[in-house]
C-alpha cells in the first residue's frame, strides 16, 4: 500500500502527517507525495504535491501524556508493544514534510504550489519514475537549503537542522535513483552554489553526502 500517512496539520510551506505505522515514519529526507484530484474530481488532471520529510516524532496522542519507562529485564524493545497493545492506540508517530514542488498536467514544477495540501488527505510513497522525473531538476533544493528555505517553524516543528535535511534528501535520492553518481555530482554542485558564501555549511553537507567507499573515485569531467 503506498499510503503511508494522513495529513493532520497543513500550511502553505508543508504539512504534518500521522504515520500509519507506529515508529516507522518515512525516512528523513525522503520524497513523499499528496495526490489531489482536480476541482471537478476527475482524476485525469490531478495535481501531485511533492514534499521532503524534514522531521519525525513519536509521542502520546494526548500531548499531556508523556511516555514512561516500561521495560523490565524480561520484556523490552518490541516485546513492550506486544505486552501493552494499547500503546498502538495511545501513541502516534508524526512526520513533517516541506513542500518542494508539484506535478500538474504532465509538467513538474519546483516551487510552492498556490494551494496548500488539504487536511486529512493521504500521504504516499512516490513511484520510482516520479522520483526520477522530479529529481532530474535540482531547483527544489532551494526550498530546503538555508538561507532560502522556509523558516523551521513554518514547515512544522522542524528541529532537524536544514543542512541535515538537505543531506538526508540527497542520500535518499541517490539511492532511489540506483546510486546515480552523475546526479550526486550535479546535486553537490548545486548545493555548492547555494552555500557559496558559507563554506563550513557547505562542507557539513558534502561530508554527509559523499559516497562511503574510498574506492569510489569520482572522475573529473
Amino acid at each position: 500500500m503506498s499510503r503511508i500517512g494522513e495529513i493532520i496539520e497543513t500550511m502553505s510551506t508543508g504539512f504534518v502527517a500521522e504515520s500509519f505505522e507506529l515508529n516507522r515514519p518515512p525516512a528523513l529526507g525522503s520524497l513523499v507525495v499528496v495526490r489531489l484530484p482536480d476541482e471537478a474530481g476527475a482524476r485525469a488532471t490531478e495535481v501531485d504535491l511533492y514534499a521532503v520529510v524534514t522531521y519525525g516524532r513519536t509521542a502520546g496522542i494526548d500531548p499531556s501524556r508523556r511516555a514512561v519507562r516500561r521495560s523490565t529485564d524480561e520484556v523490552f524493545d518490541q516485546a513492550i508493544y506486544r505486552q501493552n497493545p494499547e500503546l498502538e492506540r495511545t501513541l502516534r508517530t508524526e512526520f513533517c514534510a516541506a513542500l518542494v514542488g508539484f506535478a500538474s498536467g504532465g509538467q513538474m514544477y519546483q516551487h510552492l504550489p498556490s494551494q496548500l495540501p488539504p487536511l486529512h488527505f493521504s500521504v504516499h510513497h512516490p513511484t520510482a519514475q516520479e522520483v526520477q522525473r522530479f529529481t532530474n531538476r535540482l531547483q527544489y533544493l532551494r526550498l530546503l537549503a538555508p538561507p532560502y528555505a522556509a523558516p523551521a517553524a513554518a514547515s512544522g516543528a522542524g528541529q532537524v537542522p536544514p543542512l541535515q535535511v538537505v543531506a538526508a534528501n540527497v542520500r535518499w535520492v541517490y539511492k532511489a535513483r540506483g546510486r546515480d553518481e552523475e546526479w550526486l555530482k550535479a546535486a553537490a554542485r548545486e548545493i555548492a552554489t547555494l552555500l557559496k558564501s558559507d563554506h563550513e555549511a557547505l562542507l557539513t553537507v558534502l561530508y554527509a553526502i559523499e559516497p562511503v567507499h574510498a574506492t569510489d573515485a569520482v572522475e573529473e569531467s
Partner: protein
Amino acid sequence: MPLKLGPISGQVQSMAKALVEQFPVQEDYLRRARKHLRSADVDRLRAKLERHFGRQPRFPWLVAKPLDAGQRLYQQGLAGTTSAPPAPRDFCVVGTDGSSIPPDRHSPVRYYVVNVGYALITYGSEPSAVLDSQSQLCFEDRDMYVFPKEHEAPLEGVRFGARMEGESLRILRDVLQASTRPIVVLRDGPLTLWTLQNEEEKVQHALLRDFLDAMSFLRDSHIPLGGYISFSGSRDVANSLRVLICEGQPGQCHGCTSDERDLCQALATIRDRDLFANLEEGQRSELFASSSQVLEAYGDQRADFFYFNAGGEIARVEVPRWVSLTDEQLGLLHAVIHDQCQRSPGFPPYPPALLEAHEQAVITVSERRLIEEMVEQSLGQLGHHVTRSAKDDSKRRRGV
C-alpha cells in the same frame, strides 16, 4: 492570589509533626487488629452481626459480612489470603469509565453530555487494542427526569451520577463481541452505588435499571465483572472488627470497660487498606459481603468485595455475587487484575485498561467550551440568543 501563605506554612509544619508522632502508635494498633482478624471466629461474628444489625433497616456503620459459602472460606479467620493465579495466555480485558458535562445551572438551555470511554485490550498471541468512546448530548424529557411523563425526580446531583454509572456499563453490550478468549470487564469505581441510598425505592430501581441490566448481560455471557477502587478509604472490615471485639452493644460506647477499648476507638479511624497492608503483592483478602443499604435493590446482583495488593497500594475490588460464588470466574478476575497491575507503567500500579478507558472518557475544558459554543451557535442560527446567569458571567469575565 489573596491566600495568605505565611500562617498556613506554620500550621502545615505542626500538622506534619503531629502526624509523624502518631506512626508508632498506629503500627501497634494495626498489629493488634490483625491479630484479631486472624483469630476471628467467623460464626461468632456472623451471629453478632445478625443480632445487632439484622434487625435494623439501617445502621450507622458499614460492616463487612462474611459470606455464606461453606467451609472453603475463612480458613484463617478473616485474614486468609489468596495468591493470584496465572493469567491465561490469551485473554481480553475491557475497561470502562464515564465522564460528563452535567446540566449547567447557569445556562438557560437544559442539556447534558455523557462521554463513556472504553478500552478493549487483547493480550497473548495476537495482541491488539481498541480505544474508543461514545458520546451523547441529552436534552429530552426522558433524559432529564427519572419519571419523564410526570416530570418527576429531575436528574440532578446523585441521580445524575447514578445515571452516568449506568451508561458506563450499558456500552458493553455494543462493545463486547463473541470471542473464544476469556474476557474480564473492569470498571472504575464501585459496583455499589451507595450514593442512591437516600432515594426512594422506586427512584433507586429506576436509576439502577440500566446498571443491573448490564450486569445481567455479563452474567449471561459468563464474563466476570469487577469494580476497581484505587486507594480505597472504606472501613467495612475495621467496623466488623469493632463489632467482633465489642463486649457490649456496638455503637454504645459510653461506659465501656473493655481492655480493648483503645483498640476499638482506634479502629474507628483505621481504614481497611491499612489493615490489609500486609497482603503480598498480587494477593487478595477474603471475600466479604457489603452491608450497604442500596444493595437491597440489587437483588441477586448484590456486590461483594475483597482487598487486593496491586503492588504499591491496596485496592478494593467489588464483584457481583455470581462471580464470588464461581471459583473459575473469581480466579480469572483476580489473575487479570494482577496481570493488569503488572503491566501498569506508573507507580503505584493501575490497570491500563482502566487508565485508557479514563483517557477516552475525559472531557477537556476546551471541549466543554466547544459544546457551549455549538449550542449557542445552533440556537443563534434559529434566531434565539442565549444569555447566561449574571454570576456565571462575572466568573467568566472577572473584570476589574
